[in-house]
């Protein structure tokens, strides 16, 4: 009997030993910094002098900080434009790449390729594509007689410029949609055709409900991605204004957080900004999760 009891205990110990690299990694690299940043967010800390505890002052300071509100405005504007546009374009591309035509693997590879490029390379490429004087996009617009925006040189067109860039790199979303589309049973389409459904009705009543879990996943990831948008804003922002575009029109939340932390060494305030960002994203994700019961279809099961 004793042996029977000992064996599971030994197995448990062995189990913990096997997963200990992950546990240690989690404590050291995730949980530790998380708790540390929460504590630092209540201090005045510039790295060079010891931190001073100031309670919730950093959080209160945000309300009076015009750049905090500006960064929120820029990020929300980007999220409101980029997330729906990217979802629609990715879905349309996935539908196109789900057709039965020749060389489809080649087309799929071509459309996915931009997603493999590092964000810095994408930024450098788009700096030139969107160059108001020499850029290929404005040259094309000029050729067809349309007005040529100044893109990153005008506050009004800075965020739309980033949205256009984001469309180019949505290969991953497209592949996820494609996987979802390929899982839609063909019988459902056959049944819809027998009921006299056209292309639009099939999309609306069969495709969309069946891929709604994938749509839901991409939506949540899109919101998280939009609120953590940094690399492109950082690289492109360097070329205009003082690191965040003309008149701070490209001052995304993560970029502002970075500037506060590493340019101005306000580690306490930057940590508070980080926690505020966490709360905002969590709140938005909760809203999307709550709403999912109304529009996400899980094969006859309730999503709740």
């Amino acid at each position, binding site marked *: 009997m004793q042996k029977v009891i000992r064996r599971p205990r030994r197995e448990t110990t062995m189990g913990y030993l096997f997963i200990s690299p992950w546990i240690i990694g989690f404590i050291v690299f995730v949980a530790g910094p998380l708790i540390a940043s929460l504590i630092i967010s209540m201090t005045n800390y*510039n*790295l*060079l*002098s010891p931190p001073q505890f100031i309670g919730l002052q950093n959080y209160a300071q945000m309300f009076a*900080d015009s750049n905090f509100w500006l960064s929120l405005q820029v990020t929300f504007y980007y999220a409101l434009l980029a997330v729906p546009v990217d979802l629609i374009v990715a879905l349309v591309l996935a539908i196109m790449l789900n057709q039965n035509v020749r060389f489809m693997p080649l087309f799929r590879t071509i459309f996915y390729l931009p997603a493999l490029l590092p964000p810095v390379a994408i930024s450098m490429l788009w*700096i*030139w594509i969107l*160059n*108001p*004087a*020499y850029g290929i996009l404005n040259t094309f617009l000029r050729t067809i007689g349309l007005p040529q925006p*100044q893109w*990153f*040189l*005008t506050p009004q067109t800075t965020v739309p410029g980033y949205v256009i860039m984001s469309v180019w790199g949505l290969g991953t979303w497209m592949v996820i949609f494609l996987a979802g589309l390929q899982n839609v049973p063909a019988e459902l389409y056959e049944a819809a055709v027998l009921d006299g459904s056209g292309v639009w009705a099939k999309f609306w009543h069969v495709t969309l409900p069946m891929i709604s879990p994938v749509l839901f996943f991409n939506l949540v990831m899109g919101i998280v991605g939009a609120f953590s948008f940094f690399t492109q804003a950082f690289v492109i922002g360097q*070329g*205009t*204004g*003082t690191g965040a575009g*003309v*008149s*701070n029109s490209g001052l995304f939340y993560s970029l502002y957080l970075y*500037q506060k932390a*590493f*340019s*101005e*060494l*306000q580690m306490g305030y930057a940590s508070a900004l980080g926690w505020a960002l966490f709360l905002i994203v969590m709140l938005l994700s909760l809203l999307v999760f709550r709403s999912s019961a109304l529009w996400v279809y899980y094969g006859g099961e309730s999503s709740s």
Partner: protein
Amino acid sequence: MSKKTRLLSFAAVLSSLSLLAGYSPVAAAAKPAAAKNVPVITFGSWVPWSTHPGHVKLLNEINRENRGKFIIKPVYTPPSGYDQKLLTELAAGDAPDFFYVDYGFVSSFAANHTLLDLNPFLQQLKKQYLAANPQNYYPASLAGDSIGGQYYGLPFIDQPYVMYYNPQLFKAAHLPMPTANWTWAQFLRDAKALTVPAKHQFGYLQASGWPPLETYIWSYGGHMFNSKGTQAELTSPADLKGIELMQTMVRDKIIPSQAQIENLNIEDLFRQGKVAMFLGGANDGNYTYGNHPINTSIAPIPRGTQQVTGDYVAEIAVNAKVANPKLVVQAYLDILTAYAHTHVVPPIRQFAQKLQSIYVNSAPGGHIPAVRIPIILDSMKFARSLRPMQNMTNYYNIETNDLYDPILLGTSSAKAAAQKAEIDMNNYLKNPNG
């Protein structure tokens, strides 16, 4: 092959690889570090030592002269984000013993007790080293180093801004070459004549942040702030004249639009002959474009109501946490002295007078042309440095967002831009971190 032989062969291959990987001129420079009981002093900079044989040679000479006393070991930090990396090293207690500091950062580093107060050591060593006596320096070069009379850093380079011009374009436009005492009014007339839209040729270059607006404001007798640094003066008549000068450049289209220069190396436009004049640091030289020699000349900056130019200063400071400060300061002064023989322009007057002896790699014959030397040395006399402020990042943000961008993009008048900038600058003065 036995197991032992295989292991030995493997060890031999490994050690050969590590020897190969470890060999570089820099490693060679630091090689005497193996000597017993000789303190190793680390020197942090943004100079990629392995590609600068001149710097390595200089370091080896200092190390040879101080054999048995100390060894200076170079530490390279890439220039991109240098200040942030240095700050992180200082915070981690891992910064080199002495290091490059970009202009404007000495005061904020010193305020956080990270830099050594040099005064007691300078006092002791000023008879031994010219570099240890602040009175030997051009006053403008020291503007960022002293806090309450105490020195926390010393400059190693002080480049006054001079006007580079393309004599061929002047000749083609039948214009006389710029001379000393020329004015901004003459400059504007010349720049207009030198602008040929059909050839995409422009008279001058003005980007957001370069040349600095302060230079124009100073030349009309204006200042960004009052003498106490408590109030912005951007709407004063003198300041407005300087800001209006920049607006005139936009209005008269003597500069390329911001769209045309976005993401370009603007100085290259001058080197390519697409722009006739460029305000740059004296060290820029502009002797070559790529490997090809180009024909350029220099003139002093035009004057408004007075002759003033800006300058670029970079400093070296000593880590406050060094174990043997006196020895480190000696090594530091050795480096400053050696740099005064290699950098254009040395901020120490006695060395600046020997400007012609400094080797300049790209210059014809390896030395600054004689005709340029009096212009550079004169410019040193009326050069002015930016007043170092707390949290300079916010200062530059306001300047860019309120002045450069609206004026250069034509979205605001000089007066309206100055009014907004003055309000923001006053708020900045009240709360630099806000």
